[in-house]
């Protein structure tokens, strides 16, 4: 009897194990396939899923633009609301604030959030990053944004959509956020790549939004707009291959810190690098902090030339 029972349980365990393996492998395969398309959604894809209650479409443009017209079922959550604006720069809002904001807007932790802006991607990417550092998982950005949507003559509406308040819990995900201290350490650490997403002129110290001119030591200059292209008068992300080529000199195993002036341009770089599979974070203090803090080292290309 005991032997029979052991036999049964062994058989059962083997069955469970095999079926578990099978399920897991199919799941992994599916995940890989959708990983790319999930981050970047196209209009067709979204149009098919407008009525899906699990998908929350967020219009991150300012309220007046939202009121002028938006995609049906999209709620309005302006990206600037996730900032705390100081004279010395914009910083991402603290967890308490984000929690309050998201709950009021009706975000749920399980939502698949689709973000769109007018197409320039700066606002959408920034919102994307905020969601990332507060622990959200399933997020897509509508490629081409509202302008593309309108260009394709898809239905828009002026009706305001709201969701019921939720119990959203923002969970801090520190790996997407680099602090001043972390960035300072990265300067001397060859295992970390620093990317300057500002314009080339700003990198070169020809112009600056801060008191000082130049860039963070060891930073590479890849301006955010290099990720975009102008198609028929509308900005869109460059094709996959082009983007891959743009960053191919970077080691995927090495963490990447991006920065810009206020944190929006760097968010675009963050989004693209994330999409490409890099370990990437944003230095939120940005040049407005770094450039104004005289205790921090900077590089002026002129000095190098000297």
């Amino acid at each position, binding site marked *: 009897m005991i032997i029979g029972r052991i036999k049964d349980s062994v058989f059962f365990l083997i069955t469970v194990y095999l079926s578990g393996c099978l399920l897991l492998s199919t799941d992994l395969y599916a995940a890989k396939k959708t990983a790319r398309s999930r981050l970047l959604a196209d209009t067709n894809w979204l149009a098919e899923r407008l009525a899906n209650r699990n998908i929350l479409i967020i219009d991150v443009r300012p309220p007046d633009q939202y009121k002028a017209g938006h995609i049906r079922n999209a709620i309005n959550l302006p990206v600037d609301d996730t900032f705390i604006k100081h004279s010395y720069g914009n910083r991402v809002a603290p967890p308490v604030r984000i929690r309050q904001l998201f709950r009021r807007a009706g975000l749920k932790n399980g939502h698949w959030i689709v973000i769109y802006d007018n197409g320039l991607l700066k606002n959408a990417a920034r919102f994307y990053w905020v969601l990332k550092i507060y622990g959200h998982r399933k997020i897509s950005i509508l490629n081409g944004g509202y302008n593309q949507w309108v260009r394709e003559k898809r239905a828009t509406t002026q009706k305001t959509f709201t969701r019921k308040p939720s119990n959203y819990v923002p969970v*801090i995900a520190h790996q997407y956020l680099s602090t001043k*201290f972390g960035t300072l350490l990265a300067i001397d650490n060859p295992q970390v790549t620093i990317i300057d997403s500002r314009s080339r002129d700003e990198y070169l110290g020809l112009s600056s939004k801060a008191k000082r001119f130049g860039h963070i030591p060891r930073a590479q200059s890849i301006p955010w707009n290099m990720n975009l292209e102008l198609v028929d008068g509308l900005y869109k992300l460059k094709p996959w291959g082009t983007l891959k080529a743009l960053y191919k000199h970077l080691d995927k195993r090495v963490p990447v810190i991006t920065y810009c002036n206020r944190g929006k341009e760097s968010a675009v770089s963050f989004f693209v690098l994330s999409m490409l599979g890099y370990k990437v974070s944003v230095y*939120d203090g940005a040049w407005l902090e770094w450039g104004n803090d005289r205790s921090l080292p900077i590089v002026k290309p002129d000095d190098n030339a000297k």
Partner: protein
Amino acid sequence: MIGKHLSIQSRLTLVIFVSFSLLLIITILAISYSDLKAVRKQTVDVANKVVNVLIQDFVRLLKHTPQPGAESSADIAADIAAKLETFSQIRQVEIYNKEHKPELTYVHNQDKYTAPVTLQPNTTLIKDDYIHLYLPVLYQYNDYGHVYLRLSADALNSRIAHYISNMKLIVPLLLLFSFLAALFAQRFFTRPIRQLAEAVNQVSTTANYSVTVTTNEKAEIGQLFDGFNRMLKSILLAQRQLHTEKERLLVTFESIAEGVITTDETGKIDYINPTACELTGWTDTEAQSRQLETVLCLADEKTRAPLTGQIDECLTQGTTRFNIDNVILISKLKKEIPVHNSIAPIRDAEQHIKGVVAVFRNVTEARELARQLEHQASHDALTDLVNRSHFERRLRNIVEHSRRNEHHAVLYLDLDQFKIVNDTCGHLAGDAMLQQLSGMIRQEMGETDLVARLGGDEFGILLPHHTIEQAKTVAEKLLKLISNFSFSWEGKIFRIGASIGVVPIQYRAMSYTDVMRHADVACYAAKNLGRNRIHLYEPSDTELSRMHSEMQWITQIENALNDNAFSLFTQRIVSTDDSNRVCRYEILLRLIERDGTIHFPGSFLPAAERFGLMPRIDRWVITHTLTDPHIIRFIERNEVEININISWATLNDDALLGFIRDLLQQSPIPASAICFEITETAAIANVPATVRFMRNMKLLGCKFALDDFGSGLSSFGYLKNLPVDYLKIDGSFIRDITTDSTNYAMVESINHIGKVMGLRTVAEYVHDRDTCDQLRRIDVDFMQGYYVHTPMPVSDLELLDSLQVLANPAGEQDKPEKTGKKNTVPAGS
């Protein structure tokens, strides 16, 4: 109980194994539990330490105010999160400010957010594989808020998993070990038991009781072994004794003259001794395992019907049978052997029947002898006809048991001129003739008729179920046969004749003595009337009426005895001289009917005598006399003697002596006050019996009177032998004493002889003064009669006592007895 069919070894193994295993497993579980507890505590300690380390960061976050150049609260949060991430067991952290708003939510990157468990501060909870903690954020005694931690119990779980994986290895090993230990212990403990069991087995299969078992054990096991050895020894001893007993028994059975067969409980033979083999004709081997009925065929001697069922009865009910008479054994060769046999059950200690034992003996000779003796006792040796006593027995039987409509007859045959044969040719010739003649007569008679030689040349023939006419025909035929018979002896030829008396036996009219007497008389009459003829006894009318009245008396007497209808009277006997010194009273009997009619003994005693009721009547009289309260009181006050009559028939009663002795012992009347009156004829009829009775009674102190003396006229010689005290002169002499000089002389001589022999004399029937005077002259001692005293009921004795009447009142004188019969109780005849 599951262990019922298991051997003691298995049970012991099981018990030891289970308890050992349980013990080991419990120990392991206890150790594991304490270890797990330690691990849990360790985990909580780690969490506490982490909180302590990060407390400054928490405070920084909680007390954050945006400042130029300072880090943002998101930065601090990210910083804390980064630090927390190094502790893999910390799965979720939430930091609350004083308003209990969450300032930070951290979830380990391999985990998911779950709503915090509500807890009191500083408490720990293990739930769903997690340890939940709720700690205050205290820094330098200032409370900044709270922190909630959810710790993975992975360490715990991995520890448990570790234990389980260890267990997988250890438990089978432990089980194996405990099983082996149990096996060893079991073997150790059960070795003596097994040894004992083997010995028992050996003894029971081989029946060899000379086995001994040895052990080093003391205590119970040792006692068990010793006890076993002792038991075996006693069994061996008992077995030997049994064997000896059995041998002895067998030898006994083999050598005795009785046949012995024993069976088992189904009736199959398991033992048969040589005598039984010889008698039954079966050999030992043949008889073994056969049914007892097959071998031992018992049958009734007369009917030849087999006696079946006795053995079964014995087997089933346990009844013991003794077949003494009329049993024969039919042997295998159909030989018939008369046997005595018994069949008895064999029982075991619990009284269950385990078989039967049949014992039988060849009684051929004994039974033959008995038959001969019996024949001799009842038959005449000469003629081989039945003898007188047998004839009388049969006759009596028929007389007493004949029914109303049955007719029987008796022939009484007496040969004429037989004496001539005897006288001229001697007894041999007479005997030869008697033999021939009796053979002839017997041949002539029917099967049911009984021919007997009554003695000499007298024959009796009992003809059951013959009317008087038929009997007469038979008699005539016999007469003719005897007349035609000629007997030749040594050239002489004799012819003889016979006189035959024929008597019918009538229903309840005659006693058997009557029949014999009548037959004798009839035969005598036939002889008187000229020999060689038949005389039919025909009772006269008066005789018939007498017989019928006697028959009526018989029933009346029997009723009277049963209902106490008899009554005792008494008559005084006084002395002839005037001194009247001794008073004596004779007890008389009267039968009083319901209507008051008084019957005197003379009317009913003859019938009672004839039909054998006298012993009962005498006993009645003696009993009532000795227990009558009037008599007892009277005797107590006066010096008197009581005379009681005893009849001839009663004297022959052997039990009478004891009967009277018992009564006397119980009665207050002294034996010396009793005088028994026995008639002369009764005393002479059986002198030895009378003398024996008298001597025995005299030893008690009783006196005797010889009644009616003189009527027998032959008895002076006997007087010497009889130890009597009084002579009562027969009344017939006294009655006419005044007129008849012969009687006077008779009385005088009797009186004289009595005086000479030292006896007192009593005169009865004294009816007048003259007689009285004559008696005085003769000097008779006592007198009795109506002149002296009229009989009265015994109840009047006390009246007499009070009146002190001593003499006869004059009025009695003119009252002679009406009947000629005696008023005393006569005895004999």
